[in-house]
């Protein structure tokens, strides 16, 4: 850490120490107005110091939110000069809200106040992190916590999707946790909270050991730190990497890619707010084609190489964009079209690049996990020891990262198969072209149809078209047999016919059993309900007699 950064860290730690003195060690019987003023002042001081530490001159106002369940929210508005952003804080809950049985910082026990105070600081740092994220991608300015090119791009995409009024991406099932902008803010704020609170936490441990502080013990503090640096951090890395399908069967990456198409087409001015998106989208909000993206990637890489600069990061970013474009926006048919235009060799090279990129992403993610984990351990050293649960969770997170990578690799390889199959398609087409050329020589009238159909796309469509044309133009003298268009295996056909017959027989039996079972169940239900009624009546009669 640089010296200036270290100074800022110490300044923030001092403000937090004052905050603990005022509100945690002793119960402060303030009134709402005083309390709100205090909190706004503390918030301003902490947030401004964090921004200064990150070389950011922000313009943030602090406002109150009363939304139940919401601790904080950040609203970035600095797209134009002179406008300001806002951080909303739920001060009502922090003060204590009897209606919801929340005692906040007015809690009578120190454990409650400690929990509220650290949670408030964490929320504040979390919302500030969102501000840093959006400021970085909007202004294109580096903060001291530099994001990689890939991360900045992901943030741009996510902000763009989020900015369309009530857009579904952010709210899809558990996507709150799948969003990079959320997992990043949670991980950063968790670790930063511990770093900024470290002196007060150490002091608390000391005072508890001396017996000067009652009502809270070391385990309570351990638990909270583990939540911030351990469980929560690991959970977020886990969810951010798992690429699991949400309840609605939506793959978060797929959702992000496809929704971005709609958001940006609907609102192309998002490209001005998040300029990096111009890499993938045209000025009018439409998506660039695969050919354009490949050409753009190659020319940028060439340009950087000529200047003697490292092109790895730029190439990696383009490969991420290309992977998402191919995996989530292109049908096999449009991929075949692109292959025809780019050529087999270029396409094969591209897919090899993408597979390599996917493996490089895996290494990057594992390295990130390792760094984060090391940092968490370093922060916690001397405070508490990591427990077995944490270590087990670490293994799970690592496997989720590997799983995520596998899923992407599978997607790429399945698309790769499509490209590989095109080779066969080309070979066939060559033969047909030859035959056609002979045909044309013999009959000039058929010449006009030559390129009418060889330009056709997709295997199935190709053969369908071939049969139609064959029928239409009576190409009987074409030297082709049906074996060119499928397997002629009479034994297999017999086997298939018998299997189909057997399945039909089984289905009929199952349908009969099901019908019978349903009838039995209905009858049994009626009977049981009658009995149940009788029993009740009998019980009532007995009761009445007893009375």
């Amino acid at each position, binding site marked *: 850490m640089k010296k200036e950064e270290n100074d800022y860290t110490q300044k923030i730690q001092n403000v937090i120490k004052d905050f603990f003195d005022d509100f945690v060690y002793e119960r402060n019987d303030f009134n709402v107005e005083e309390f709100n003023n205090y909190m706004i002042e503390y918030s301003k001081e902490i947030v401004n110091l964090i921004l200064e530490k990150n070389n950011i001159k922000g313009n943030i106002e602090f406002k109150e939110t009363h939304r139940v369940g919401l601790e904080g929210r950040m609203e970035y508005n600095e797209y134009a000069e002179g406008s300001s952003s806002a951080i909303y804080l739920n001060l009502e809950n922090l003060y204590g809200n009897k209606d919801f049985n929340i005692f906040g910082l007015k809690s009578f026990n120190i454990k409650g106040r400690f929990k509220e105070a650290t949670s408030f600081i964490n929320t504040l740092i979390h919302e500030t992190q969102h501000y840093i994220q959006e400021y970085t991608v909007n202004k294109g300015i580096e903060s001291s916590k530099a994001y990689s090119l890939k991360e900045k791009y992901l943030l741009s995409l996510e902000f763009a999707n989020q900015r369309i009024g009530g857009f579904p991406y952010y709210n899809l099932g558990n996507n709150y946790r799948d969003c990079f902008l959320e997992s990043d803010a949670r991980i950063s704020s968790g670790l930063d909270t511990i770093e900024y609170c470290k002196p007060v936490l150490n002091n608390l441990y000391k005072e508890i050991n001396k017996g000067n502080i009652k009502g809270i013990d070391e385990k309570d503090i351990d638990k909270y730190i583990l939540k911030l640096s351990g469980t929560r951090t690991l959970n977020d890395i886990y969810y951010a990497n798992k690429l699991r399908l949400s309840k609605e069967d939506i793959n978060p990456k797929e959702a992000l890619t496809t929704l971005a198409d709609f958001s940006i087409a609907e609102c192309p001015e998002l490209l001005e707010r998040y300029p990096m998106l111009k890499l993938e989208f045209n000025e009018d909000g439409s998506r660039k084609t695969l050919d354009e993206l490949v050409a753009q990637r190659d020319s940028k890489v060439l340009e950087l190489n000529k200047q003697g600069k490292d092109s790895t990061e730029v190439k990696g970013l383009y490969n991420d964009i290309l992977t998402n474009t191919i995996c989530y926006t292109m049908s096999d048919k449009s991929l075949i079209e692109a292959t025809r235009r780019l050529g087999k060799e270029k396409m094969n090279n591209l897919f090899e690049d993408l597979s390599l990129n996917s493996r490089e992403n895996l290494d990057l993610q594992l390295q990130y996990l390792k760094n984060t984990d090391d940092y968490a351990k370093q922060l916690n050293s001397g405070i508490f020891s990591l427990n077995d649960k944490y270590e087990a969770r670490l293994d799970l997170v690592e496997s989720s990262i590997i799983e995520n990578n596998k899923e992407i690799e599978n997607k790429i390889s399945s698309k790769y198969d499509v490209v590989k199959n095109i080779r066969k398609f080309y070979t066939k087409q060559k033969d047909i072209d030859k035959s056609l050329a002979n045909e044309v020589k013999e009959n000039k009238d058929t010449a006009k149809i030559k390129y009418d159909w060889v330009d056709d796309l997709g295997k199935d469509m190709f053969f369908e078209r071939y049969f139609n044309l064959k029928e239409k133009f009576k190409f009987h003298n074409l030297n082709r*047999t*049906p*074996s060119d*268009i*499928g*397997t*002629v*295996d*009479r*034994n*297999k*056909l*017999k086997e*298939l*016919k018998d*299997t*189909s017959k057997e*399945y*039909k027989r*089984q*289905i009929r039996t*199952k*349908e009969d*059993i*099901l019908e019978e*079972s*349903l009838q*039995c*169940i209905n009858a*049994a*239900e009626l009977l*049981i309900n009658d*009995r*149940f009624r009788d*029993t009740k009546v009998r019980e009532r009669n007995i009761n009445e007699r007893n009375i």
Partner: protein
Amino acid sequence: MDTKEFLEIKNNYEEGKINENELTDEQVVELTKYYTNEIEELKNKSNNLDAKLNDSKEKFLKLIEKAKNLKK
């Protein structure tokens, strides 16, 4: 081969009026494609029925349980 022609061949084949060796190569290819798709659909249907049968079995067991409780 048009749809009408295909259906006629298929019915004759299923009813045993013609066998595999009497089919042309083209007819074998088309019928192979047809049965491959049909089997896929039948498999789905069969699995679906299995799930329904399982449900009804569970429902039945619950009813038996209810009946036993009534006896007590």
